[in-house]
């Protein structure tokens, strides 16, 4: 009997001790070669390029992956105590919230100069890294692209009841709603959300599962960012039964925006933070976003993937990205309308 217990306890203690031994490396805050990234972008999209940065510089990078709004709220909660050095967000809304709280340090001219003015914050508090368009992804077997409405109000029609997928916890969706509030006004946006709710949209956790479901024919259309589709096309071939439509109406539902990054003033590794931001704007990283994640590169001289319509050909909304900062107001509206519980 006692032999049996020892057999159980001994391995546990071994693991326990080795577990202890393995930890100090992670908890030494004053290690000069470190960087803590809060990433609102999903791991499958950005881990490869972050690994490349770590390998090239030898900096020990720790990444906390979560939802963009969750990380923004976490940063606000942590305040000065935050262990984060940079906040890499999926959309300008999360960045705007942190900028408004005065938690970002200003970025130097040589960094901000790399990206056109409309893709960064006016006060140089954050900068865009890659561009993305909001699109409607549809299942090619179930939907004739001709019947797709000209703007998102069309999806409140009974034709689409139970057939539209969306991801209300997703930062890009939230940014689009913020844009709607700016351009359509509070009332029209509220009404649209209520009408959509009445049409029983299928709720997903994010863009990736939405596109998966459209491809599987579980739903007919999804409101997503453009680039997820191209990963499926690459992995499953041209037969993958889904395609994107950019609404091209110049309204808030034909939104082109950016993922972006800001440096936290309270961060302990300011230099590494700048190195990381510069790396993300380097040709290597911009090429990665263009070629591997099918986003729009924001730095001059890097080619957009040829399957993508060039940014200049899109009739996008004219809204400035700084106007998308009121994430909190959008979250409140989403809760008021029952889109979020």
């Amino acid at each position, binding site marked *: 009997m006692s032999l049996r217990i020892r057999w159980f306890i001994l391995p546990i*203690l071994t693991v326990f001790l080795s577990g202890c031994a393995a930890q100090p490396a992670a908890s030494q805050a004053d290690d000069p070669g470190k960087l803590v990234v809060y990433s609102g972008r999903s791991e499958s999209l950005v881990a490869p390029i972050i690994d490349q940065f770590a390998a090239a510089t030898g900096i020990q990078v720790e990444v906390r992956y979560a939802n963009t709004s969750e990380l923004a709220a*976490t940063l606000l909660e942590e305040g000065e105590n935050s262990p984060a050095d940079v906040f890499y967000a999926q959309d300008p809304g999360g960045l705007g919230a942190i900028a408004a709280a005065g938690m970002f340090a200003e970025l130097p001219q040589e960094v901000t100069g790399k990206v056109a003015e409309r893709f960064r914050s006016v006060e140089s508090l954050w900068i865009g890294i890659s561009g993305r368009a909001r699109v409607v992804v549809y299942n090619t077997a179930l939907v004739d692209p001709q019947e797709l409405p000209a703007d998102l109000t069309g999806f409140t029609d009974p034709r689409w009841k139970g057939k539209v997928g969306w991801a209300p916890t997703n930062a890009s969706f939230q940014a689009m709603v913020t844009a709607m509030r700016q351009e359509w006004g509070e009332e029209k946006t509220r009404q649209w959300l209520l009408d959509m709710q009445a049409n029983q949209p299928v709720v997903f956790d994010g863009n990736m599962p939405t596109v998966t479901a459209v491809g599987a024919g579980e739903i007919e259309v999804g409101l997503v960012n453009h680039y997820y589709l191209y990963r499926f096309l690459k992995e499953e071939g041209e037969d993958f039964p889904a395609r994107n439509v950019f609404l091209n109406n110049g309204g808030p539902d034909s939104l082109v925006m950016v993922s972006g990054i800001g440096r936290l003033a309270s961060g302990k590794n300011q230099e590494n933070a700048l190195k990381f931001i510069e790396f993300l704007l380097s040709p290597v990283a911009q090429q990665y976003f263009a070629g591997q994640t099918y986003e729009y590169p924001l730095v001059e001289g890097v080619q957009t993937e040829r399957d993508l319509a060039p940014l200049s050909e899109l009739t996008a909304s004219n809204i400035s990205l700084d106007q998308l900062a009121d994430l909190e107001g959008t979250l409140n509206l989403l809760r008021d309308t029952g889109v979020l519980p």
Partner: protein
Amino acid sequence: MDGKLGLVIGQRAKRLPAAPPARINWLFLPALLVAAGLTLPLAYLLVRGLGASPAAWNWLLRVQTLEIIVRSLGLALAVTLSAAALALPLAWLVSRTNLPGRRLWAALLPLPLVIPSYVGAYLFVSVFSPRGLLQNTLEGWFNVERLPSIYGFWGALIVLMLMTYPYIYLAVRAVLLRNDRSVEEAARSLGCSPWQTFWRVNFPRMLPALASASLLVSLYVLRDFGAVSILRYNTFTRAIYLQYQSSFDRSAAALLALVLVGMTVLLLVGEARLNRQPRAAVSQSLRPAPPAQLGGWRYPALFFVILVLVLALLLPAGVLLYWLGRGLAAGEQLTSLTRPLFNSLGASALAVAATVLAALPAAILAARKPGWLSRLVERWSYLGFALPGIVAALALVFFGANYTPGLYQTLAMLVFAYLILYLPQAVGSIQVSLRLVHRNLEEAAYSLGSRPLSVFQRVTLPLVAPGIASAAALIFLTVMKELPATLILAPTGFRTLATQIWSAVSEAYFARAAAPALVLILLSSLSLAFLNSTSHNLQGNKETG
């Protein structure tokens, strides 16, 4: 939550005659420290929740909140009833009838316990969703274009029922095996039909066990985070998480969390009341009843048992292997699991060590030093029962981010959350073991001149070691499966098997989730097997000793 059974047994354990108090007063210091440690985060949550902005209060007091309460309680009730409806006949068939192969079925039926709810849910979704694996197969054969949606209430009900029936099955089977035939014979001789005998004799005896196992199941459902999230059914736990994810005003999440604590406490109080009812005496000389002859019903019964096993065990295992195969074929690297595996094992081992250490003072005091302070310290350690994982995690995040930045997002914080959650299991089972050790043995050692610490080391500890070991195995098993607290509190970059599964599933990479899920299930099975072997040994000791 499995420890609740231990706790219940503890309340029933025979109190041995009190002996002169040992010199263990110093234990109050660590015991009170642990109690204070448990209280701080919860107290902070309370302050935070009660001090919430008027907007948050308004938000709480709206119709939707009531809706979420009704949804959560409705699901808990439905799962409990259906799990009981499944478990009762299963337990009876394998314990009291001549069902062919009943020993094998009896051993297999509790096994779904090792499948975490989120793994069960993900496998279920991957097969039964409108365009899942089943539809793909049916499309080839019968041209079925889509299956009805399994998301929402029904999906959550089916998955949680299949995951939780073992709790009720085990409790009922234990009673059925102990049932004495003489009472049944008496009932029959007085003219009761077998059916009447069941309702008047067997059922009342089963009722206490059935009730407390049912409450365990209800608590499981109320606290469940993974399955309801994957199946898109907004219960309280999921609403709290979404609130935490998508609101800048986090006091609203704190408020919601407090409501969930209130609901949990209500259930626990109900359970305690049920268990206070007097129960029928069990006669000392058991004469097992002869197995009921099923006759022609044998085959439908066999079909039923096998159907449950196929749905709850075989299907999940098969689908998991299918996804694993697909993942490996697509170039998934198993080596990427080394780190999460190591982290899971390490964090669980740390949690076990911390929890057992923290439980010892309270358990020893409760068993060896009767008095109001001991009772208070012991009762207080059961606080974790009232805290769903998500609530404990939120409390620690809020508290840590604001007051203990040094501990915030460290492994220590995560282990502390586990400690809060699983301390009740540890205190419960260690206490039971202590009460089973007769004081005379310790007194003898004292009288021979041993000092208290050496008495503990040389007499008490070896005797209670089996109890501690099985508590440890149980905690190990539960910690490894824990999801919400791990998700929220894990240090930056710290992945465990559970978080790996979760992040893969939430991006719909079903194949990528398979390998960590399989490893997690294998590890859980190992600790469950260990648990079974120790409890058998314990029983063996009691019978021979």
